[in-house]
């Protein structure tokens, strides 16, 4: 299998159909990024398609200095951020989302040693993160769920390291508050 550089060269030379191969190579990564921001499968797929279309339109700007995977991940995060901004405006009137019983039980209990499955944890976090601003949500997701460093987050968002640290701290405080409210509300 040829590497991305050769594939990109052929696509730029007019082999449009080869773009499908590029999509197949990187779709898992794009879905993994978008899954952190959108849990609805249909909307997530729409965002993934939008991500690849943006990449197609900007293909001439990709200089190959960084791996294609990093570039497409950055586009996916920006697409997610735009989506969150739109959703934030739309979701302001929506009340508490339905959480699974397991998630609710775990949230209500004071026992911090009890285990929680990944899906339930993601459900609770997804609900609590609705209280954050889109930019705060991207920062905390990149840091805590994707394991990115402050420098990587700052570079991806075009912000300073200090600004990222402040956002992350603020996001954690808001999340704790949101979890307390959620636990009280769902009792």
């Amino acid at each position, binding site marked *: 299998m040829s590497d991305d550089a050769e594939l990109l060269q052929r696509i*730029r030379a*007019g082999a*449009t*159909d080869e*773009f*499908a*191969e590029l*999509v*197949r190579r990187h*779709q*898992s990564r794009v*879905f*993994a990024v978008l*899954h952190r921001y959108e849990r609805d*499968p249909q909307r*997530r*797929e729409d965002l*993934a*398609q939008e991500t*690849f*279309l943006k990449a*197609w*339109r*900007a*293909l*001439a700007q990709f200089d190959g200095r960084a791996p294609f995977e990093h570039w497409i991940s950055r586009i996916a995060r920006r697409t997610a951020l735009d989506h969150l901004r739109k959703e934030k405006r739309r979701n302001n009137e929506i009340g508490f989302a339905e959480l699974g019983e397991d998630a609710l039980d775990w*949230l209500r209990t004071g026992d*911090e040693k009890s*285990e*929680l*499955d*990944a*899906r*339930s*944890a*993601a459900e*609770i*976090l997804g609900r609590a993160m609705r209280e954050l601003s889109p930019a705060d949500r991207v920062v905390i997701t990149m840091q*805590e*769920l994707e*394991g990115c460093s402050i420098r990587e987050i700052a570079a991806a968002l075009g912000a300073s390291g200090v600004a990222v640290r402040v956002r992350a701290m603020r996001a*954690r405080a808001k*999340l*704790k508050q949101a*979890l*307390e409210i959620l636990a009280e509300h769902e009792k």
Partner: protein
Amino acid sequence: MKNKLKQLFAAARNEAAPLPSPDFAAAVLHAVRREPAPPAAEASSLFDQLNLLFPRVVLAAATIIVLCVAADFGLTSANLPELGDGAAQVSSQWLFNPGDL
């Protein structure tokens, strides 16, 4: 609640990412075909760069020629001494005039 948040992050990190639908790449390609072709990579050779600048270079050259012709015409009309007059004057004042030798 601080520990609960840490536990949530740790557990959510392990959540498996969903797989795209089998025809996802084909759907993207279908959407891409409706898009205009992506712009070609920027020209890098000197000739390519000159070609890109061609209309501007022509305009600049034409402006310079017009300015030179206008200046020449203006100076001639003002009866200012020409370069040839100055040369004749210098030649007549030259210490060793060829006619004296």
